[in-house]
C-alpha cells in the first residue's frame, strides 16, 4: 500500500511497492507471486503498472518477428563502445551520470586534446581548407563520431519535450557557429593557438551536449 500525503493523491513508493517491483518480472514470466496480484489490487499505481505490463505482453505476443531495421544510434554506440569512449549498453546510466562519472567525456576530451597537440607542427607547415583544419586539430574519427551522434540526435529528438529539444538545438547551433568561426580563423591564421584551443573546446562540449541529449531521450525526460 502506498503512503499518501497532503490531499491524499500524490504517492511515495513504499516497501510493498518495491517488493512489487522486484517480483513483477518473475510474475510476468509465469512465476508464482501471489503478492504481486494482491498488492496491485490495493495500490492504484502498481495496479496501473501491472495492467500496462499485461497489456504490453498481450500486444507483443501478436507482433510478427520482423527483423528491426538497424538504428543509426545503435551503430554509433557500438563504434563508441569499441573505441572505449562510452560504456556498453548493459551498463546504461541515467542521463546525468555522464557528468557524475565523467569517464566517457574525459576519454573523448583526452582524445581530442591528444589530437590537438599531436597536430600542432603539421598546422604550422600547411595551409588547409576550413574543414581540413577541424580534422587536423581534433581528428577525423572524433569528427565522424560526433557527426553520427548529431544524426542520431536529429532522429530521436522528436521524442523529446519540445522546450528541451529547442534548448539542445540552440546549443548545437551555437557550438557549430563556434566551430565554423574557429575554422575560418585558422584558415587565415594557422598559428593562432587560442583558435585551436576554442575549436577543441567546442568539439568537446558538442560531444557532451549530444551525449546528454541522447541519454535524456533514452530515459524519462521525454
Amino acid at each position, binding site marked *: 500500500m502506498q*503512503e*499518501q*500525503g*497532503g*490531499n491524499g*493523491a*500524490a*504517492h*511515495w*513508493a513504499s*516497501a510493498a511497492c518495491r517488493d512489487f517491483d522486484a517480483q513483477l518480472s518473475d510474475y510476468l514470466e509465469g512465476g508464482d507471486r501471489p503478492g504481486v496480484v494482491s498488492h496491485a489490487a490495493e495500490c492504484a*499505481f502498481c495496479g*496501473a*503498472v501491472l495492467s500496462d505490463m499485461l497489456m504490453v505482453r498481450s500486444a507483443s505476443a501478436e507482433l510478427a518477428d520482423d527483423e528491426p531495421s538497424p538504428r543509426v544510434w545503435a551503430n554509433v554506440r557500438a563504434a563508441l563502445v569499441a573505441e572505449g569512449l562510452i560504456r556498453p549498453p548493459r551498463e546504461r546510466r*541515467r*542521463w*546525468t551520470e555522464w*557528468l*557524475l562519472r565523467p569517464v566517457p567525456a574525459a576519454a573523448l576530451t583526452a582524445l581530442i586534446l591528444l589530437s590537438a597537440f599531436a597536430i600542432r607542427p603539421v598546422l604550422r607547415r600547411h595551409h588547409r581548407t576550413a574543414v581540413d583544419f577541424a580534422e587536423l586539430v581534433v581528428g577525423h574519427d572524433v569528427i565522424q563520431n560526433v557527426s553520427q551522434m548529431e544524426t542520431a540526435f536529429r532522429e530521436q529528438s522528436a521524442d523529446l*519535450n*519540445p*522546450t*528541451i529539444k529547442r*534548448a*539542445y538545438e*540552440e*546549443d548545437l547551433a*551555437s*557550438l557549430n557557429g*563556434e566551430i565554423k*568561426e*574557429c575554422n575560418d*580563423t585558422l584558415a587565415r*591564421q594557422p*598559428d*593562432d*593557438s*587560442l*583558435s585551436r584551443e*576554442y575549436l577543441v*573546446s*567546442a568539439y568537446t*562540449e558538442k560531444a557532451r*551536449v549530444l551525449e*546528454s541529449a541522447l541519454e*535524456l531521450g533514452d*530515459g*524519462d*525526460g*521525454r
Partner: protein
Amino acid sequence: MAMAARNESFLLRKYLYFLLTLLVPAGLLLAAGQERVEKSFPATPNCRIRISNPSGGNIVVRGWDKSQVHAVCVTNSPKVEIDTEPMPVKSDAESLEFVTHVLDQQLTPQEKTTSYELDVPKDSSLVISSPQGTISVEHVSGDDWIESVNGAISVSDGAGLIQVRSLNGNINLVRPAGHVEATSIMGNLTITGSESQKINAQTGSGKIVFDGDFLPIGDYILKTYAGEISVVCPVSDSFSLEAHSVRGKMDNQFKLKDRPHIPYDGLHGASAFGSNNRGQASVTIKSYTGTIHVRPRP
C-alpha cells in the same frame, strides 16, 4: 445582547476566513491537477541526497540545523510518482534518493513536471538533475552536483565542491567558499562575494561576472566564447593575470607589473598579462569574441 451578537458575528467571520485560507490553496491545487505530498526522514548530519527529476520542475533545497530531511513535493498529475529510497531504511538515512517517475508518457510536458522543496541537514551533499525549472540551493556545505538543460541554477553559501552545469540556464553562485566548476553553453555565470580558492567557470555565448576576492593560493579560470567577462576584485588582491580576447576588447584597469614572457605562441587579439602586488593567485581570463573588463572594486 448586541455585544454578544457582534462577538458571534466576528467569530463566524473569523471561522469563515480560516476555512477559506485552508480551502482556497487546496482548491487551486486541485484545479491545476496538482497533488502535494509532505514527508520527513531522520537523517545523518552529512546525508547524501539525490534528486532525479527527468521531466523537470522547480527545486529548492535549504540547509538547516536539524538531523532530518523534510520534503514537500508537488506533482501535476496523478500519473506521476515520486519514488523515495532512504538507506539504511531502519535508522537515520545516510543517503536519500528522490526519483520522479512519469507513468504515462502521453501527459503534457507541464503535467510531467514535479517541484521539490527540501530542508536538509546543512552538511549534506547533493546530486540534483532536472532538465528544466529553477534549482535553488542555500546554506548546504557538503558537495553539490547540479545539472540542468534549460533551468537557472542558484547556489548560495555553498562551502563544499560546487559542480554546476546548465546548458541554457543562468548560473548564479553567491558567496561560494569551496571549489567551483560552473559550465554552460548559452547561460550567464555570475559569481558574487566569492571566497573560493579555485574557480573554473566556462560558458559559450553567455556572460561571466566575477565579484569577489582572489585568494593568494587560488587558481581561477574564467572563459567564454562570445560573452563579455567582467571581473571586479579589491586592489589589494595579489594575483597574476593572463587575460586574452582573440577578437574582443580588453579593458584592464589594474596597473600590472610586467611578466618575463607571454604565455601563448602565435597570439592575436587583445591581451593583458602581468602581476598585481605579489602575483600570488593565478587568474586566467579568456574570451574569443567578447570584451574583457578587469576592474578594482571602488
